């Protein structure tokens, strides 16, 4: 998942669709995010490249909508409903995920195991 600034980012992504759950007055998704361009990337435990300022999934509440949809802890979120999440501040990411008029969020996430799987399948004859 390394990237060079100025070059387009390529990654193997998985499409995950999460239905928001209504809890009282709020719509929740059941996970926590960390990271952002205004945060300190060195403290991110999930990123391989410690200068990566993307949005990562740091916690998933068990049994919640995200858990059921297949989101895993440590995933990097690349897109939310078409909006790019690789170069956003923490607050912008939070806002894109918690829009009150949307019931469904379609995420593009990437993780290391995806890349490994694709590479393995390519080398196998």
């Amino acid at each position, binding site marked *: 998942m390394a990237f060079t600034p100025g070059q387009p980012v390529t990654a193997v992504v998985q499409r995950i669709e999460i239905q928001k759950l209504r809890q009282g007055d709020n719509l929740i998704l059941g*996970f*926590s*995010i960390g990271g952002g361009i205004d945060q*300190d990337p060195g403290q*991110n435990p999930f990123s391989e490249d410690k200068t990566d300022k993307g949005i990562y999934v740091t916690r998933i509440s068990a049994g919640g909508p995200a858990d059921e949809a297949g989101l895993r802890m440590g995933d990097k979120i690349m897109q939310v409903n078409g909006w790019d999440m690789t170069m956003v501040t923490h607050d912008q990411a939070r806002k894109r995920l918690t829009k009150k008029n949307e019931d469904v969020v379609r995420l593009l996430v990437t993780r290391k195991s995806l890349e490994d799987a694709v590479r393995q399948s390519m080398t196998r004859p």
Partner: protein
Amino acid sequence: MDTESTYSGYSYYSGRSRGSHRHGERSRDRHKSRSKDSRSEKSVTINTPPAEPLLGDSSVRGEQVQDDNWGETTTAITGTSEHSLSQEDIVRITKDLEDSVGLDCRRYFTLTLAVILGLLVFLTPLAFLVLPHLLWPEKLQGCGTACEGLFISVAFKLLILLLAVWALFFRPPRAGLPRVFVFRALLAVLVVLFVLSYWLFYGVRILDSQDENYQGIVQYAVSLVDALLFIHYLAIVLLELRQLQTCFSVCVTRSTDGETRHYNLGQLSIQRAALAILENYYSDFPVHNPALLSASKSRAAKHLAGLKVYNVDGPGNNATAGMAHSQSRAMIAAAAHRRDASHNELYYEEAGHERRVRKRKARLVVAVEEAFTHIKRMQEEEQKKAPGDVMDPREAAQAIFPSMARALQKYLRTTKQQHCHSMESIQQHLAFCITNNMTPKAFLESYLTPGPTLQYSRDHWLARHWTLISEASVTSGLRDGSIFLLKCVDFSLVVTCKKIPYIQMSEEYIDPKSHKFVLRLQSETSV
């Protein structure tokens, strides 16, 4: 001591090695150094050593011939290693003899030279002014107020010159150095040449032709005095100012116990640097205590005594160097095989000694504090009450001394300082402390830590006579890496010199507005 051959031998040695061009001064040296220097008690004399090779290979030459009967025919001179006092007593007695017997030829010679030069310098302008009036008074033109103004200026400049020369040159000498003071000699030569050339000009142009222009003569005299003042300025710069800026860092180590100090010196000749170091030695280095070195000597003796190497083949065999090598190799091999527990002994002995010292120190502190409580300074209003018990400080000290004497003596014996302090000196110190309202701790400070040599009584300034040993000529300047020794009877000071490096400093400007900070966050939001 054969002074004549000694000095000439050494100066020849240095001349050969340095290729120096100052022949005139060396011959002056031989004249001046005809007798030994010794002076009043306060000064330090530094003498150059006899001409021995500095690499110390004289020991090899001495061992080549071995006489088997030497034990019966020689008389042994003992008493230098453990009882070094006897050697120092001898030295002190010879010094006292010299003090009382001889006049100081070299010093008085220099003094008379200086006085003659001074008289020459001061009387010359006056002579220039007076001689025309004496020799051709009728031909002289009278000179008016300009001349009189010049007379006043000559008078005041001479007065200033007199005071300045007195301030700079006529100070009590601190020490007798082995070689002549190069800059002073050069300046004296310059002054003599200068005055002689003025006299020459005066004699030829003015006396011979009997010049009538008196104002010109007066101006000539004024120019002489001005030039003398400028020479005095040169003297100040060369003698005083040049060595103020430090450019060398010297490291002084005492050879017996390794005490080391560092000093910063300017550009000095080696003999003047040695003098500066010795003056600092007396106030910085703790006093030399030979009793503290006996432990390491006995350990060394034990190492050697364990093994004896016998030379079965007899003397006059192969080269002495080979024999010495094989001997030492045999001893080292044997020592390596033997399992030596002396490090263990040392450790436990030192630990035991520490404990003993601390115990004695505790007892001493308590005894002294208790003794001091018996004494109280008498107030003014009590003066009428009990006149019988009133004591002056000396009697007060004698009164409280017995209660602490035993503890103090035991402590001094344990720390091996008992020969540094006599009963008299302790009582004097006690009286001094009582007079000045010092606390017991202040009284004890001079006994708990070995102070600098200055602190002790006069007979402990054992070394007043120092020998400067140097491979470079002692009038040459200090240089990076120059090493010399200052030897006295008991020990020697090893001095190494390092140049303070040239420092290249650059500046960097930081705008005060450029100090900005950001928070390093890692927040986690749940969505």
